[in-house]
């Protein structure tokens, strides 16, 4: 599958401040999470991908074409900006319909698409209220609505879950997943790792303007050889299992907590999981729980950033 | 019972209530004004009339040195209280004061309204009057720098160039007149600019209003004077009101034949209107219906 979004050694300076440094990435159809702390360069990258900023160095291609000053591409792109800004003196319906008319839609089509988009984000009931009277969550949903109202193939969402309550977040996450099901491309940025984990396993990790890692969360985790994997076990006779496991060459560390939780560090998780069933049978144990506490984005990010 | 780690120490002191809470607001406003591009240029340009009038004072004391350059029938410069009034109410000085207001005053309230910063202010032990006083003090500072300071300095230089205190002895009310007029102008311009700044949420619009109202009032006064042929039409003009109100302080006939009390009343009405509007606009919480 050819990438939908490509960047080649993309760099961006704001005067003396480096926003992005030699970012080369490919975004394929599906949902890709763009992760990083505040100031990592996520919004800068998104603005470059949507042609709002010009690269200082490098190239950006969206659907195989350069994005800067290429308005025709925006028929296929929907963008949800980070900032909470609107034309405050308009209603939600007027705002959406107006933007759809800029797409070249006739009045009837704009009205139809507006209704569809507002219903999708559950703002139809407040369509005739002025935007200045909308709550934070409603404003965020309106931003998402304007991004997908014209049914784009590519969605670029900059912190779309900001300001939403947990129920609202779940609805938007479900909406974004439906996009994936239609074989569209979604690039979602966030600094809240669990939100992105709920959306996708394909991530791009950024820090200080650079890409730290890109790909599947688990693959990235496996590639971090410098950090052993952590596995936590709860069983009937943890001391016995601990004594047995410490003899295994791939087990680097064994810790028995006061609550009976057995925590292991291993440099080969697959080998450990391969040996575990045999050990359990040999020692006649009852395993209550097995988890990988560091097989998540937070741990991956912490390892890569070097915390 | 588990041992808990105490991460803080109880403070045994007394909380002192600082009743000059407006000062940080003023300091910040002044600092931000100086950071703006072109403000320093405009600010420097505003002192041009002071230098011109200073040169006039020098020339008036050293007239014999310049006899060769001056026509025989030329009227010599007379440095009297009217001279100081001319400086303080010079068209160019007032125009530059308005330009400076665009830089230092336009965003004082407008930016806070735009960014919902009022909640940040009033979630601290700050009263509404501290806030308003702090903002007004920014404008008062700059206006006094343009009026009171140069006005007094011109008087000092007059004494230095004349070599005696005779001038002050002859016109003992002049220092007070300079101070009173400067204070009046400062309070008026502070109220005027804060009123217009609080009417919009955009600094650019506020800049526009500050300049536009000043120019429009003058233009309208001229038109109404033409229609009605009455000096009272001049009371519409901001500039004229300042000149008329200043005249009795310096013992000079007003430029228009209008009681100076009318101008004072109009200037006071603007200040009162500003206080009323800002009292309504400056709130910690805004209810949007």
């Amino acid at each position: 599958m050819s990438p939908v979004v490509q960047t080649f050694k993309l760099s961006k300076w704001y005067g003396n401040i480096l926003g992005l440094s030699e970012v080369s990435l490919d975004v394929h159809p599906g949902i890709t999470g763009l992760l990083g702390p505040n100031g990592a360069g996520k919004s800068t990258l998104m603005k470059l991908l949507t042609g709002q900023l010009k690269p200082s160095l490098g190239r950006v291609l969206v659907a195989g074409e350069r994005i800067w000053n290429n308005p025709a591409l925006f028929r296929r792109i929907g963008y949800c900006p980070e900032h909470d800004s609107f034309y405050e003196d308009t209603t939600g319906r007027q705002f959406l319909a107006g933007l759809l008319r800029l797409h070249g839609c006739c009045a009837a089509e704009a009205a139809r698409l507006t209704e569809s988009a507002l219903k999708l984000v559950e703002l139809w009931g407040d369509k005739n209220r002025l935007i200045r009277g909308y709550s934070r969550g409603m404003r965020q949903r309106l931003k998402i609505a304007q991004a997908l109202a014209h049914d784009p193939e590519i969605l670029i969402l900059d912190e779309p879950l900001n300001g939403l309550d947990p129920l609202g977040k779940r609805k938007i996450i479900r909406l974004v997943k439906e996009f994936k099901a239609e074989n569209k491309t979604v690039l979602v940025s966030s600094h809240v790792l669990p939100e992105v984990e709920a959306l996708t396993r394909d991530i791009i990790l950024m820090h200080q303007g650079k890409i730290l890692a890109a790909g599947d969360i688990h693959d990235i985790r496996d590639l971090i050889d410098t950090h052993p994997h952590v596995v936590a076990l709860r069983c009937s006779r943890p001391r016995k299992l601990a004594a047995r496991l410490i003899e295994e060459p791939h087990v680097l560390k064994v810790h028995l907590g006061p609550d009976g939780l057995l925590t292991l560090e291993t440099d080969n998780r697959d080998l450990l999981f391969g040996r575990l069933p045999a050990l359990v049978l040999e020692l006649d144990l009852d395993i209550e729980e097995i988890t990988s506490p560091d097989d998540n984005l937070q741990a991956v990010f912490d390892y890569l950033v070097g915390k | 019972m588990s041992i808990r780690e105490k991460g803080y120490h109880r403070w045994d002191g007394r909380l002192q209530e600082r009743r000059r809470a407006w000062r940080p607001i003023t300091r910040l406003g002044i600092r931000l004004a100086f950071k703006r591009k072109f403000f320093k240029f405009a600010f420097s340009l505003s002192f041009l009339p002071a230098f011109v009038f200073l040169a006039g004072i020098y020339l008036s004391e050293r007239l014999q040195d310049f006899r060769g350059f001056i026509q025989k029938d030329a009227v010599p410069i007379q440095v009297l209280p009217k001279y100081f009034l001319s400086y303080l109410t010079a068209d160019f000085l007032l125009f530059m004061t308005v330009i400076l207001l665009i830089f230092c005053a336009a965003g004082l309230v407008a930016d806070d309204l735009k960014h919902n910063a009022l909640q940040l202010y009033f979630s601290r032990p700050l009263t509404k009057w501290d806030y308003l006083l702090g903002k007004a003090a920014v404008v008062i500072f700059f206006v006094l720098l343009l009026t009171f300071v140069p006005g007094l300095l011109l008087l000092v230089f007059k004494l230095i160039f004349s070599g005696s205190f005779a001038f002050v002895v002859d016109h003992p009310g002049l220092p007070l007149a300079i101070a009173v007029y400067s204070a009046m102008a400062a309070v008026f311009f502070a109220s005027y600019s804060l009123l217009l700044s609080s009417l919009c949420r955009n600094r650019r619009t506020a800049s526009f209003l500050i300049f536009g109202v000043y120019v429009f009032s003058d233009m309208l006064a001229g038109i109404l004077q033409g229609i009605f042929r009455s000096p009272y039409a001049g009371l519409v003009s901001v500039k004229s009101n300042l000149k008329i109100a200043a005249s009795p302080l310096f013992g000079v006939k007003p430029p228009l034949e209008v009681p100076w009390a009318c101008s004072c009343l109009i200037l006071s009405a603007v200040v009162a209107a500003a206080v009323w509007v800002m009292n309504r606009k400056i709130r910690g919480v805004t209810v949007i219906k």
Partner: protein
Amino acid sequence: MRAASRAAVFFFDLGRRAKRTKFFFALGLVPVLLSLLLRLRHVLSVSPRGFSGDFFYSNVILPFYVQFLLLMLALFFGTSVILEEVEGRTLAYLLTRPLSRAAVVLGKFAAYAGLGLMVMNIGLLASFLILKIEGAADPEVWVTLARDAAVLDLSLLCYLSLFTFLGTLVKRAVFFGLLFCFGWENVIAYFPGLTQKLAIAHYVKSLIPQPPGQAFSFLRLMLEPSPPLVAVLILLGLTAVFLAAAGLVFSAKEYLSPD
């Protein structure tokens, strides 16, 4: 062009709802009120003082438009074309539509020009009718109105295009605009010869007949007028140049939100 017209319709719709448009409509009615005042005074006066509607129209209403309202409208709307979007952080919505950047500028310019022209022409027509109603049967009177309206409209478009260009170029466009209108153009008017031609106001005033009498000193004109055709061509040319420049600058420049 179609993209620009879509943008124009969008922004016209937005602009007509805005409070500032209502404010400018109110400001545009000031000449109407003044005309009504004069008319009432004339009607109620025991001994008429000799002001004619023609005189007041030529000496007050037209100069009020030329030296104040037109400039204020052009300055405010012109600088708002781009700066409003940048300051309000709504530029992202426009730049991520299938509209060229030049179309955004042109469309918004057209929308604000429409609003400005409405404000000015409604006030001008109303003032004109109030002051010259006696001569309404004379076609010459309507020709005069059409000529004055055309001059003011062309002037508004020229100034608007200048300030639109200024707004795409610099952040402090209002400051520079005020310096230009009330500084440069006022000062240069008193310079003789070719120097006068370095101001847009020169060409505007060249198209307006000299007012009779000097009743209103602050509106005094010191002019060595250019031929009318030259003035029209220069104004049209300047409008086109500034608009093209605005489109070019906006297409090439990136705008950072004021973070």
